[in-house]
Structures are given as C-alpha cells and as structure tokens.
C-alpha cells in the first residue's frame, strides 16, 4: 500500500516536466548501482535451487532492473507528460529492493523480504497503466490497491510466523505450518488479481480496440502473456505443478522484454508526433478545408476522421459545404472532440473512439490547426448562408410561379369561359335574326371582337403559365414551341416521363428564351433543342448555327434564366463565340 502511494506521488510530481540531464544521469547511475548491488548479492548469496546457477540468477535480476529503469528513463525523457516512464523506473527500483533478500544482513533482508511480492503486482500495474501511465476506472484502482495490500500484508504475516532464516527481524516464534498456509493464500490471491487484471485488459481491448490504427498495441497485447506466466508460476508454487523451473524462466524472460515493447509502443506515439510536425508544415500551405481534413486524418492516423463546424447563427454543426451535421447520431465506435479557440467553439472532431486514448495528440493537433479550422469554419458558414439564400430564392420563384398558375387558372375558369359562352349566345341570337341582316352584321362584328379578346387573353394566360406544361409535360409543351420557332429546329426529348414541376418550368423557359433569342439575334438557319436526363441531372441544351457573339450581360432574359436555374441548384452556361453559333446549356439537378 505504501508503495502504491509512493508511485502516485512520484508520477504526479513528474507530470509535465521533462527530466533534466542531471536527473537522467543520476537515475541512470542509481540504476546501474542497483543492478551492481543485486548482481553482487546474487553471486554471494545462497540462492541456488531457485533458478539454477547464481550467475544466471544474477544476470536475470540485473537485466530485469536495468530493463525497467532504462526503458522507463527513455520513455520519461521522450514523453515528459506521460506518467508511464516514471512508473517503469519505479518498477525497476522496486525489483532491486526486492533482491535485497539475498543480503546477509538483518535490515536489508527484512525490507527485501517484506516487498518480495510487490514487483509482480507492479508488473500488473504497468500493464494496466499502459500507455499513459494512468490507472483508469475505480475498479482497476481498487484491484491494484487490493493486490498491493495482499502482497505486503500477507508477507508481513508470513514473516511473523517465521521460516526465513536468521536475518528476519519480524519473526515471533516459528510456525512453519502457518507460514505455508498463508503463502498459499497469498499466491492464490495474487494469481486471482492477475487474472482479473488480464480480464480488464481484454475487455478494454474489445471495447476500444482498433488494432489497425495502432499496430504496436498488438505487440503490447502479446506481452499480456507475461501476466499469464506469473499466474501459472504462482499457482504451480502454491499447489505444486509441473515445469516450475521452465515457467519461472519464461516468466523472467517475458517480464524482462516487456519494457522494451512498452518503449516501442511509446516511441510509436513519438512517430505520431512527427506526423504532427508534418501537420504543422501542411498548415503553412494554403489548405482547402478538405485538405485540412486529410491533413488531420493523417496526423492522427484516423482515416475516418471528419470535421463539423459550429455555426452559431444557425445553432447547428455543419460540414464544410454548410449542410447540417447531427453530432448526436454518431455510429458505434465513434466519438466527438469539441474544439474551442480563444474560448469560442469552432468545430467538432468526429473520430474513431480509440483516438480518445490520446488526448494529448488530439489537443496538439487541433491546437496546431486552430487558424485553419477557423478559416474552414468561416467557409462553412458562408456556404450555409449561400445555401439559405439559394433556398429563399427558390422559394420566391416558386411562390411567383404558384401565383401565376393561380391567375392563369382564374382566367381559364372565369373570363375565358364567360367570353366563349357570351360569343355562343350572340351566335345563336344571330341565327334567330335572319330577317334583320343589319343586326346580324353587328352581332357578327361583336363576335369577332370577342374572338380577338379571347386570343389576347389566351396569350396572356399562356404568358402567365403554359397550362399545357403542367397538364401534359415538357415534351408536349416543347413540340408546339419548336413548331412555331423562327428557324427549323430539331427537338430531342428524353427525360423518362414527367419531372417535378419547378424543373419542367425552368427547362421550358430555358428553351423558350433561347428560341426567342435565336429569332432576335442569331441569324441562324437551324438549331437543335436537346433535353435529356443524365446522371442525376436534366440537361437542356440549345445549339444554333448562327453568328454567335451574343451579349450575355445585356438584357434580362439570360440573367432571369440563370436565376431560375441556380435557384434549383443548377447551372446555366452560354458559349457564344463570334461566328461560331450559340450554345446554351442548363444543368438541373434531379432526383
């Protein structure tokens, strides 16, 4: 328990600060000294029967201590903010202290023996704290606390009952039976803690696991086998099992190699930081918002990464095109990180859940991209406003269209019908007045007037809205128009049935205005009108063989057409080289 507290204190104290070179040298020297002491003790001590030759035991204990101390030191130096390095250093020195049991003096022996089982628990601690050195979750913390408590307290109880030779200061009357019973409990409990710890690791991997995103984590996972070894070793020792020496060997080797693997994992994080410096270089260029996404995705090694920009005026997040994005409807395995700049929300990062394990990386990357993010946010806002504007223009045009249709309908059902009925009435009256030719002539004249009015009304109604278009579709409506055109026109319509009314109306007016222009300016001898559906678009194309060189700026005709087309999210283009005819092309998006 005391050791755990020290570990906390040490790692907390080290947070954020890189060790100075003096500290590094001192720790390295202390590590070497500790290794030397262990080595000497092992050679001089009476330890055969545990692992074999004293020399081999000495080598292994030295390697174990040095491996943790030096790897930990390297990790601390490279990643000062990470507590994992100090934790490894602590594990190394603790291992050294535990080797003091080989000393033939009372105090070192008693201390070493008291913490004899702390190193295995520390190894468990290291596995659980990878990669940032923090033990996350109340359950895991409780697990480690219990493991430390068991390791130390039961060891003290065992020492109380004796059986450790003459240097044990804590012995009060030898009771070998009790000592053995307690040891069995101790080994079983620590094995159990290791198994639970393994379970925690497995669950964590299953829940957050994206081995593809961080391949060294696979290697680290493999070294979880070290914990399995520990369990096997302890259970064999407690209950007697086969191959105890072999297992002991394998356990030591695995545990000795583990720090190197951890270090590789952390150095990979280091690689990530070089990706981060690439990001900084990228950001110096003139990044488009989609390039920015790519650059962030590369730096954070998450291809699925996406950005949503905060648009306060619209009270929503939006993609770079200004389309709203719902942050609540995230899929499984996805997470969000909010990015603020100078206290103001700028954007949200939508990323793979496993990126959440690297808050420092996330923080660094988003901080580096701050200015570019703000630019992209402004662009998203601009697009959203444009989109809104386009929507309102479409609504204005639609409302106008609706009103014109209503007027046309009123004319059709009202005035036109009444005039026809009136004309009919006059004609029937005329037939009855056979005896009065003068009256007949005047009635006939009146009828002609009405016929003229009807023709004018028909033009007005047609100008308001071509009823044939809503009744019978684009192709039928274009046939008459083309037949009345001032030049021979070849008409091709291939749109597969009826279209949405705004589309039909826009296409109709594009053709109508273009044909009118051909009549007025083009001096053409023929033209083609082609209306076709292709790849989610209605393409309306009018080509003439006239003189070209049309003035596309002057006159409201083309401008009005462009308004209609753009309001539907489409595009109107005109090619009119002098002497090369004129080509009008409208592309209208269509479901």
């Amino acid at each position, binding site marked *: 328990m005391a050791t755990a507290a020290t570990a906390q204190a040490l790692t907390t104290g080290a947070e954020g600060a890189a060790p100075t070179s003096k500290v590094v040298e001192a720790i390295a020297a202390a590590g070497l000294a500790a290794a030397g002491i262990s080595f000497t003790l092992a050679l001089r001590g009476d330890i055969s029967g545990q692992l074999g030759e004293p020399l081999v035991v000495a080598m292994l204990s030295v390697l174990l201590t040095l491996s943790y101390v030096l790897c930990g030191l390297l990790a601390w130096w490279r990643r000062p903010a990470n507590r994992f390095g100090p934790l490894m250093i602590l594990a190394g020195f603790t291992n050294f202290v535990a080797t003091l049991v080989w000393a033939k003096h009372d105090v070192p022996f008693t201390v070493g023996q008291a913490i004899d089982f702390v190193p295995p628990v520390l190894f468990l601690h290291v596995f659980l704290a990878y990669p940032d050195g923090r033990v996350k979750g109340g359950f895991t913390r409780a697990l480690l606390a219990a493991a430390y408590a068991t390791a130390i307290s039961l060891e003290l109880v065992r020492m109380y009952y004796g059986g450790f030779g003459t240097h044990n200061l804590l012995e009060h009357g030898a009771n070998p039976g009790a000592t053995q019973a307690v040891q069995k409990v101790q080994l079983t409990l620590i094995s159990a803690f290791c198994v639970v710890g393994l379970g925690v690791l497995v669950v964590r991997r299953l829940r957050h696991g994206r081995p593809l995103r961080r391949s060294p984590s696979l290697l680290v996972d493999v070294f979880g086998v070290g914990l399995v070894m520990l369990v096997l070793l302890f259970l064999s020792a407690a209950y007697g099992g086969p191959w105890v020496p072999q297992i002991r060997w394998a356990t030591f080797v695995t545990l000795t190699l583990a720090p190197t693997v951890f270090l590789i994992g952390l150095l990979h994080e280091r690689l990530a930081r070089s990706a981060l410096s690439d990001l900084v270089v990228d950001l110096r260029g003139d990044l488009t918002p989609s390039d920015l996404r790519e650059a962030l995705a590369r730096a954070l090694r998450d291809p699925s990464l996406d950005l949503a920009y905060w648009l306060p005026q619209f009270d929503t997040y939006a993609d770079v095109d200004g389309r709203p994005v719902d942050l609540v409807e995230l899929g499984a395995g996805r997470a969000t990180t909010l990015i603020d700049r100078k206290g103001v929300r700028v954007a949200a990062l939508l990323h793979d859940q496993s990126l959440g394990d690297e808050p420092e990386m996330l923080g660094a990357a988003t901080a580096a991209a701050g200015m570019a993010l703000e630019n992209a946010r402004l662009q998203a806002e601009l697009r959203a406003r444009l989109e809104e504007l386009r929507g309102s223009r479409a609504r204005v045009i639609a409302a106008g269209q609706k009103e014109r249709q209503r007027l046309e*309908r009123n004319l059709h059902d009202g005035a036109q019908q009444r005039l*026809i*009925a009136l004309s*009919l009435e006059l*004609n029937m009256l005329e037939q009855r007045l056979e005896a009065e030719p003068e009256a007949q002539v005047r009635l006939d004249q009146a009828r002609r007037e009405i016929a003229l009015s009807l023709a004018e009304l028909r033009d007005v*109604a047609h100008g308001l809205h071509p009823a044939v278009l809503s009744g*019978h579709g684009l192709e039928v409506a274009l046939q*008459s128009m083309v037949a*009345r055109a001032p030049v021979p026109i070849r008409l091709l319509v291939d749109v597969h049935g009826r279209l949405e009314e705004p589309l039909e109306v826009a296409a109709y007016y594009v053709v109508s205005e273009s044909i009118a222009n051909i009549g007025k300016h083009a001096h053409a001898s023929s033209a083609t009108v082609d209306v076709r559906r292709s790849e989610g678009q209605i393409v309306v194309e009018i080509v003439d063989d006239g003189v070209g060189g049309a003035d596309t700026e002057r006159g409201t005709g083309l401008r009005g057409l462009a308004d209609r087309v753009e309001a539907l999210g489409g595009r109107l283009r005109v090619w009119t080289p002098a002497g090369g005819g004129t080509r009008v092309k409208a592309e209208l998006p269509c479901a």
Partner: protein
Amino acid sequence: MRVAIAEDGVLLREGLSRLLGEAGCEVVAQCGDADELLVKVRSYPIDVAIVDIRLPPTHSDEGLRAALEIRAQHPSVGVLVLSQYVELGLAMKLLADSAEGVGYLLKDRISDVKDFVSSVRRVADGGSALDPIIVSTLVSRQRDDDPLANLTPREHDVLVLMAEGGSNQGIAEKLVITTRAVEKYVSTIFAKLGLPSTGTESRRVLAVLAFLRA
C-alpha cells in the same frame, strides 16, 4: 345523333347542350368529370363524346386520358376534344394511330355554331376535325427546303382544309367550287408532294399531317 358532353364549366356545358339540342342532336349525357363520362360511354349507345381537355380533379390531363381511353375501348364512338389552348403535341397523341372519328378544337370554335355542329357531325360519322391553329402551325413551320412552295394558293387552301379534316364536299362548299374540282386539286397536291393517294378522307388527313410534320 347522340352526344355526351364532359365539361366542368357549367356555363359552357349548358351552352353546348343547348346549341347541340337546337341543331337537332340528342344530348344523352352531361358530365362534370372524366369518370362520369366513361361510365356514360360504357352504358349508352353514343355517337360522339365532346370532352374538355382540362377536367377535375387535377385539371391537368384527365380529359385527354378519357379521350384516349374512349378511342381505344370504343372505336365506334367519335371523340371531339375541346381546349382553351391547342397544342401540336396533344394533336399528335390523339391522332397517333388514326384520324378516324376524332377531333381537337379550340373552345372558341363553339361560337361559330354552324361550323362547330358540322365538325361534331363529321367526327360522329368517323371523320376528323383539327383546329386551324394546329394546321397553320404545321403549314407555316420553318423547313430547310419547303415543298409547299410548289403549291398554288388555291392548292394551298385545299391542303389546309384537307388537313383540318374537311370532306371533299365540305371543302367545295367552303371554297365555292365543285366537288370534282376539289378532287382534281387533291390529286394534284398529292402528286406534287409525292404522297401516295389514300382512299378515305380520314386516312388522307393522317397522310397530310405526317407529311407536314416531317
């Protein structure tokens, strides 16, 4: 002659009914929409159905669909479509297969009672009646080289009346010439345009229209 009328404007429906009644026709059905008309056509022996192209409920193409259905299901019933606009494309739909017993006129034509009644009779008898606007649109269409330029003005007039569905006798009366003279004009026109002669007057309409559209 038994007539069915489908027209949603009461004023016009009543007027039509009255003028046809006075002309000696028997108006057996006055309908406000297309479904009602189809029921009546199925139930009664009818010579000709007069259909407004714009009928409830949507006032889009209900009338045209009813007309096409009657043409398909009841070939013996003449169909005269009335509209406040005449469109070439719709004429082509109506006359897609044959010009027999079919007419398509602007509503305004009602007021010339004599002409209108004769159109109705013609359609009832299996002839055709096409609005002058349609024919003039076709005749005045811009062409690369105009074969109609070879026709004399009189031949031109005969061609137009022929296209409108006029019978030889009707054309003769309109132009105040003899039917024999009309027959002569017709064969000259066919020869000049390079059309094979066709027998019935309604086939003749189709041939001329096809020529004018080409």
